[in-house]
């Protein structure tokens, strides 16, 4: 592998800007990977392996890899890391890099649209189920509250997410 210092610097800059502040503290001990349910389930590019690639400047090369989207954000890795890397934050920083390049599955678009329209990422009409259990048909949440939905839309419109054309 050809190591290109410029690529390494650029990659670290992007990961830190996206919230992966601890990446350079990693000593590649592998404690995170050993406890990671994502790695266990067969997503290869998480924890130690992802950090290794990023520290070698391999960013674009992995843009289509879906491993980061298999991360459960469970933070077992953060808890065990002896170096304070907070590997989950690095995984999510990489995911944010992918997301802002629109490198994610189309199924993920639905939850962004749901959130924008109803304030709920997961939305199904709850009326029948709620009536059945003896609750008011409408939830007290944003789902039935136009003003609340408008607030959430304003926050999303005025964010980097608003520039991606997802909603």
């Amino acid at each position, binding site marked *: 592998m050809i190591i290109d210092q410029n690529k390494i610097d650029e990659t670290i800059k992007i990961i830190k800007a996206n919230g992966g502040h601890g990446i350079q503290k990693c000593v590649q001990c592998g404690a995170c990977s050993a406890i990671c349910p994502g790695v266990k389930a067969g997503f290869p590019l998480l924890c130690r392996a992802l950090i290794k690639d990023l520290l070698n400047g391999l960013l674009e090369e992995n843009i289509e890899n879906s491993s980061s989207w298999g991360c459960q954000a469970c933070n077992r890795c953060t808890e065990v890391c002896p170096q304070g890397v907070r590997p989950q934050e690095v995984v999510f920083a990489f995911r944010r890099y992918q997301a802002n390049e629109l490198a994610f599955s189309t199924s993920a678009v639905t939850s962004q649209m749901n959130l924008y329209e109803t304030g709920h990422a997961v*939305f199904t009409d*709850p009326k029948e189920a709620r009536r059945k259990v003896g*609750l008011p048909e409408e939830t007290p949440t944003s789902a039935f509250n136009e003003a609340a939905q408008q607030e959430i839309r304003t926050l999303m419109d005025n964010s980097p997410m608003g520039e991606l054309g997802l909603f």
Partner: protein
Amino acid sequence: MEQIGLYLGCNIPLKNPDIEQSFRKIFPALDVQPVDLEGAGCCPAWGTAPSFDLNTWCAISSRNITIAEEKNVDIMTGCNSCFGVLSEAKHFLETPATRTAVNNSLAKINREYKGTSDIYHVAHVLHKKIGLTKIRENLKYKLDGLKIAVQTGCHTLWPSDVYKVKEDNPYFPTMLKELCEVTGATVCHYSRLEGCCGMGGMRSTDAEKSLKLFKEKLLSIKEETNADMIVTTCSSCFMQFDMSQPILKGRGVIDFEPIPTFYYTQLLALAMGFDPQQVACISQIDRNPIIAEIQSDTRRIKEGM
């Protein structure tokens, strides 16, 4: 009566309102009054804003938190993901630069994050505020002889440094175990106790990988405990156990009947004598036999005993 903001999230009020109803039944009976946080939305879920931009995540989370701040109440949530997302956002908002940026966004909707409301999980309120003794005093049925396998779920355990209430050892959680034992039931240990059920981002990204992880956990429960039921304090884990056991059974991957699964407050509501048609009536797996067993006359606790 002490008040606490009931933060509902998405799945509980929209898909499993019987869990919401169980909160609304048990807490007032235990002298805690849940108050609605009108207009609260998604926490936001891991696959949405947290996957795009840290400050947008914190802005949407803090909007929810400000609704509780205005009412001078802390927040209680029953969904582990909501608990994790809101707790982490609160942790990030301790950084002055983040707080300033987020409050600039919130100003556009006439809100300001102050940091005055703490985030609790339903299990924390039950275990730490209400306490085991008070729960025991309010039972109508005793569950002696029934065997439970517990599933705490990831997002109340790690990373322990961002949570208001912590387990002594997050890899060996005991709060849910104790909450179940107070009903008289036996909670059996199994080797994959701290294991992930495979729900969450993993389930939507690759269902087969998720099921593989789930199967390993399920077999550990079945072989090591032969539990009568699984009890969880995570609504996502609840959905995985309730939806995926029948899938594995249908495929012939497991040869035993799916194990009935309850969210903890459903079990407690049943043990406190509430109507199963209101607090535990939405599930894929047939729970009627175990519910009838829980609320059978022989288990009724006589007044004054």
